[in-house]
């Protein structure tokens, strides 16, 4: 029994221990912010980030502190980091929208049909952990349905189906039990596919640090990663870019609409 308990503890996710002094440091940073000492608050929140704390509230507060010092680029960066961990937080979304309305560069918006809007909603409103959990549950559901298909001729499965199929839409279309189960498996498969696609895309984006924000006031975008290259265009603080390549001192970025080029690495920071 003891061994089982130890094994269960080992299996618990994110088993890093909480530290009481982290909470005290966070509170101290909040006090500095409330006193209007925003640069000191930024340092205090930043120290927590440097210690390895990745917390939606911490990023949110840091975004606020940067906004108060008029550093809109880093405000966008930390609000985005906060939303990555807690995508449905209304405060963070409101603040980000307010900051975006003050940015110098125009923001692109996408047109979406209903189905894509639904998928994109899931992608934008669920954190990576939630998406993975949703994918795991869909996968489990798919396996259960496949198990029922395999055992469809056994009495317990037939009885179970008779009881549960009252709520099945397949009944309306006159589907047999097997057809109904196959239809359910297809639906579960689509759920698994969309959740897996979305989760993998998020995880890859986090690992490759592909989304970044311009954090300097103005960033010049050059045709190649050299100082004497042709200046193609300029982007400004707070603009979101996609990162496709990194070289020493330079980052290759792209924007919607075939706009791409190299910026000095310090001009952008990955979300």
């Amino acid at each position, binding site marked *: 029994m003891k061994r089982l308990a130890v094994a269960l503890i080992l299996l618990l996710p994110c088993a890093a221990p909480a530290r009481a002094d982290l909470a005290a440091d966070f509170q101290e940073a909040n006090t500095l912010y409330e006193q209007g000492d925003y640069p000191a608050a930024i340092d205090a929140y930043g120290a927590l980030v440097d210690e390895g704390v990745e917390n939606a509230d911490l990023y949110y507060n840091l975004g606020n502190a940067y906004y108060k010092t008029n550093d809109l680029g880093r405000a966008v960066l930390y609000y985005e980091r906060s939303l990555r961990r807690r995508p449905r937080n209304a405060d963070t979304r409101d*603040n980000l929208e307010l900051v975006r309305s003050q940015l110098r560069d125009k923001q692109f918006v996408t*047109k979406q049909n209903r189905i894509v809007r639904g998928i994109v909603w899931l992608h934008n409103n669920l954190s990576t952990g939630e998406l993975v959990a949703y994918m795991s549950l869909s996968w489990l559901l798919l396996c259960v349905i496949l198990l029922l298909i395999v055992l469809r001729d056994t009495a317990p499965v037939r009885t179970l189906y008779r009881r549960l199929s009252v709520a099945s839409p397949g009944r309306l279309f006159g589907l047999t039990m097997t057809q109904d189960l*196959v239809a359910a498996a297809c639906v579960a498969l689509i759920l698994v596919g969309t959740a897996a*696609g979305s989760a993998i895309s998020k995880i890859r984006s986090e690992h490759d640090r592909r989304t970044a924000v311009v954090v300097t006031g103005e960033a010049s975008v050059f045709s190649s990663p050299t100082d004497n290259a042709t200046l193609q265009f300029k982007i400004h603080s707070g603009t979101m870019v996609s990162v496709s390549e990194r070289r020493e001192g330079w980052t290759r970025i792209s924007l919607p609409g075939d706009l791409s080029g190299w910026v000095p690495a310090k001009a952008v920071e990955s979300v």
Partner: protein
Amino acid sequence: MKRLKIIFAVLPALLCLPLTVAAEVSLSARIEPSVVPIGAQATLIVTVKGKFRKSSQPELPSLDAFEVYQSGSSQSFSIVNGQRSSSLIFTYVLVPKMEGRYTISPIRFQSDDKVYTAAPLSVEVVKAQSSLPAPTPDPANVDSNDAPIFIRGTVDRDTVYVNQQLTWTLGFYTDGRLDLLRSPEYSPPNSQGFWVEDLPPQKNGYQMINGRKYLVNEILRGFFATAPGEFEIGAAKVEIVVDNMGGRSAMDQFFNMRQLGFGKQRTLTTEPKRIIVLPLPQRGRPDSFSGLVGRGLAIAMKMDKETVRAGEPVNVTLTVTGDGNFKTMAAPKIPEIEGFKMYESGSTSELFKSDYVVSGRKITNIVLVPRDEGETEIPPVKLSYFDPYEKRYRTIESAPLKLRVEPGAQGEGGTPVVFTGSGEDIEVLGHDIHHIHPTPADIAVSGTPFYERRYYVALHSLPMLVVALTLLVERRRRRWLADAPRARMIRAKREADKQLGAASDMIRSGNVEQAFAAVSAALRGYIADKMNASAPGLTDDDIETFLADRGVPDEARREVVSVLAVCDGARYSASATSPEAATGTYARAQAVVAKLEKELS
């Protein structure tokens, strides 16, 4: 079972489905105008939308009734759901050669081994309204040296405004006195300070100069100055090789000297042209000036719907058409509208070169998202351009549009709010960010997220493993069920035990006679199952023969026959039906079934 195999074969492919949705390409083509007189030009516009290789070109069908010239291409893009899609517009000038009604076969476009086709087009060629005028060079520039072959560069004006079209013409004059041994090679003039567009098609005609009839071929180019000042359109060169041997001798014909590279090479050049480029006047320049220099501009605005719910987007399209260089034109803007969010979602520019004048069309797409319900007017969009012929700025504007905004769906546009009472409306005095959050309870140094731990990934294989194992077991069970004799043999002992159990219950309840019958049925049934025969028709001889054939020892065979005889005797004579005798027979039957199970398995 076959169906199941299909399901499992298809599942992995289906799993990949959402990740491999093919990008669609759409191809469309149109001709403007669809009725064209001989000598005039029609423009064929081919539009390719979607994701495709930029190097691909449309394949035009054979157009024998027309001279065809490509007059350029333009690219635009749009972002839909985060997916970038491009559209390429290819324009061609069609010059009809003969009258008639023609159907142009579908235009093809190949990208990534897929071929896309546009719908067929029809065009009608009618009689010329007036004869094509012959090229008329400036009399001052007429060559007076009576040369048999010469070139001349002319411009339609030597003073232009920035971005105003200037047409430069290269004339190639030959009177037939000299033969050319190969096609002339043309080098365009230096055009620094200008943005240049070719103006197809080439003009051909005859002209009398100094009493001689010259064949004149003219190439036209449109020049647009990019800055004010004094610029020069450089000298154009044409390299020719003329026949200097007469080319009539039998020797020449025998050796075909012309093809061996004989002949005299000459370079013809044009005079450079000085062009004065005037700046656009600062005075009277409207705020809505788009940078376009041209004439005959028109602007139209339309929406994809007239009624929309709060929070839902409505697409507004602004289309500007007219003469001028549309590539330098800034997109028109809708004035800020209170209660609306506004986003630009892409723009397209097309250039046309009808009758040697560069004209164009710019389409700008804007997404409006209304916040509040009610009737709203989308105000007219103003656009100003400079008309170089009237030397003044002109402003055009679109008609306003009406938009009805209905209450938004709950959760999307927010819960509808109704204000009642006679008090004042609440006035919003300022906006700021929301306040910081308090210290979170779960603050900790982050570890590896659960989904990146190996055990979590490995756990996902377990349910599928269960499905696979169940499938194997189920398949085995079904195979056994399909083999009835084998199934009977396997179930024989279980069935016999069940009946013997019933017999035991009967003995306990004092129903001795029926207990003997149950023991007999259990034993006969067991052997019948093993023989795959019918129990009621089984004789003692059949049983003995079967058991002997299967190598059952004599002792066990005799015991079976003996137990059956006791049971039969008890059923038909009352003397032997004591409970003790029944219990003994039951025990013997149980023992013999166990022994037979060992021998017959």
